[in-house]
């Protein structure tokens, strides 16, 4: 079973395909503890109208708790949740006007796809003919117009999540919440559905919060990515900015691949690394003895074959056009470098190489323990 492509263009003027003005969502100083575990520790975040914001972070960073608070399934110990400036903290979940797609398959097993999509409309006592028409329109929107009579167990995982998306959009919510909706799907379907969710979100112009722990997913889909750690916001920026100018060492290492190379701060603005001096990007951390780690992306590391070189290639991983080469420095520090595949062929594991960095500012962080 293959998922058909979601390619329904915005017709305009009718029902769901009309571009809606998205809502503004604000989290203000949200705090929530579960016993001794602090899930949210004063989260402040604003989601702009019509944007897709990804909440990204490792397990237990509080991203799902934040989403569930907006949905009304969790309540903060303190702080406020505002939608379009209106405080909804005390509003029950069914009056929040949000649509949600869950991580696990959440379709009602006793209803077919059409009735699942029409469920919310039935609860709102919309007439049978009207709700069936609207549900059919939504099924068409998610690319499954012929699957209305199928029950959830007759649908693939990808199809179930599309139906769940249609169901979430049925009541024309002000905010769409996606709680890791792709994590249970296999890689190929995940990729297709990712693009389709994005296209649909842009077509409808609906404010969307997307929780994920997959940085690639967040960077490829979102207008902005909010990286969370320990219940707090580390950085909220566009994917390009997050990658190029991470605000903290955590963000730098969580978003994309980063190697740590030992270095030493020589004066306030220069760091000595791999035998050369490079300017520090931002402020150098004040650490005793100036011992720091220099953070470098694999595409910035240059390797050259050098029989006198003290670094050794330990592994290579073919990624298509590029090959990721892992080398160890004399102290045993691993460094990853992305090389064009044809250049990497000359560096088999065990080769002696010289490691070099381009002459531009580098990020530094206190030396890792």
């Amino acid at each position, binding site marked *: *079973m293959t998922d058909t492509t979601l390619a329904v263009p915005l017709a305009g003027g009718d029902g769901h395909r009309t571009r809606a003005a998205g809502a503004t969502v604000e989290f203000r100083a949200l705090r929530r503890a579960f016993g001794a575990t602090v899930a949210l520790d004063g989260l402040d975040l604003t989601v702009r109208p019509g944007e897709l914001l990804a909440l990204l972070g490792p397990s237990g960073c509080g991203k799902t708790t934040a989403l569930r608070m907006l949905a009304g399934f969790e309540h903060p110990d303190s702080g406020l949740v505002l939608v379009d400036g209106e405080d909804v903290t005390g509003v029950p979940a069914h009056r929040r006007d949000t649509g949600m797609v869950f991580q696990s398959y959440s379709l009602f097993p*006793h209803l077919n796809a059409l009735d699942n999509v029409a469920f919310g409309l039935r609860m709102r006592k919309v007439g049978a003919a009207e709700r069936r028409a609207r549900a059919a329109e939504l099924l068409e929107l998610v690319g499954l117009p012929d699957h209305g009579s199928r029950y959830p167990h007759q649908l693939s995982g990808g199809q179930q999540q599309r139906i769940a998306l249609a169901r979430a959009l049925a009541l024309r919510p002000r905010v769409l919440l996606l709680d890791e909706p792709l994590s249970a799907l296999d890689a190929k379907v995940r990729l297709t559905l990712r693009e389709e969710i994005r296209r649909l979100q842009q077509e409808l112009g609906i404010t969307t919060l997307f929780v994920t722990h997959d940085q690639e997913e967040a960077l490829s889909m979102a207008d902005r990515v909010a990286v969370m750690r320990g219940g707090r916001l580390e950085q909220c920026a566009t994917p390009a900015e997050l990658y190029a100018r991470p605000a903290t060492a955590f963000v730098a290492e969580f978003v994309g691949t980063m190697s740590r190379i030992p270095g030493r701060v020589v004066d306030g603005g220069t760091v000595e690394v791999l035998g050369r001096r490079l300017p520090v990007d931002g402020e150098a951390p004040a650490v005793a003895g100036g011992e720091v780690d220099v953070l470098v992306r694999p595409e910035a590391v240059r390797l050259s074959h050098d029989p006198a070189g003290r670094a050794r290639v330990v592994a290579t991983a073919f990624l298509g056009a590029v090959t990721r080469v892992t080398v160890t420095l004399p102290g045993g520090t691993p460094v990853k470098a992305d090389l064009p595949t044809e250049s990497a062929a000359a560096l088999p594991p065990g080769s002696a190489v010289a490691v070099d960095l381009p002459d531009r500012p580098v990020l530094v962080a206190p030396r890792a323990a």
Partner: protein
Amino acid sequence: MARLTTLLPRGVSARRPRLWRGAVLACAAAYFLVPLAASVVFTVDVPGKGLSLDAYGQIFRADGFTSSLLLSLELALATIAVVLLLMVPAVVALRLGAPRLRPVVDIVCSLPLVVPPIALVAGIGTVLRWGPEHLAATPFFQTLVAIQNPAFPVVLVLAYTVMALPFVYRALDAGLRAVDVRTLTEAARSCGTSWPRALVHAVLPNLRGALLNASFLTLALVLGEFTVAQLLGFQPFAVWVVNVSGSQAQLSVAVSVLSLLITWALLLALTSFGGGTSRRAAPRRKE
């Protein structure tokens, strides 16, 4: 091992389990069917007259048959309603709100299995007899009298509710295990449904099999319960069967055979009715 297998005559290894299976099945069938067949023969073989279905005809004409059967069915329906109204919200709340209390509820719901009905009825009897004279004019005393109304003894419904708890709890618990109640209720609520409506429209339809199982077990329990009803002095179906067996042996066995057939019919109906649920629980299709 492979060599050993090749040395065996073809089909021996496959035939032997089949032979055993047949033997075990035959023994089990004999264990159940021989007494049943003996009962049927006893009811239809009238000495000196040959075969006759007269005993079955008498059932419907016998004194007290209809009233006792109707009373039992009414009691069963009332018990099913009370026990489900009590247990469904309780087990859903337990699963969603207080999973840590599960062992406590497990033990409480298993207690009726440990306490024999004779002890239960002794306790109930003592409570019902307790009523000092100065309370005679109070609503409390009148309530005690009302729940012992022989036309519809509510006290039996209360006793049966307690006795059905272990079966109903287990049936519902097994049903809930197969459903992701939290996600279903949250999905329903995000579709603009209030909590009670989410329970009715999103959770209960997916517990159809469990609800039917619980109802059937309760029905079987109430139809066959003798001790409590007899000792409290009421005459539902089981008590009537025992009473009638003293004077009309053939009739009472015919009633037993008939009630067995009714039970089987209900069980078959349940299996075919619940089939839809198991089909829906079939594994998801692959991508």
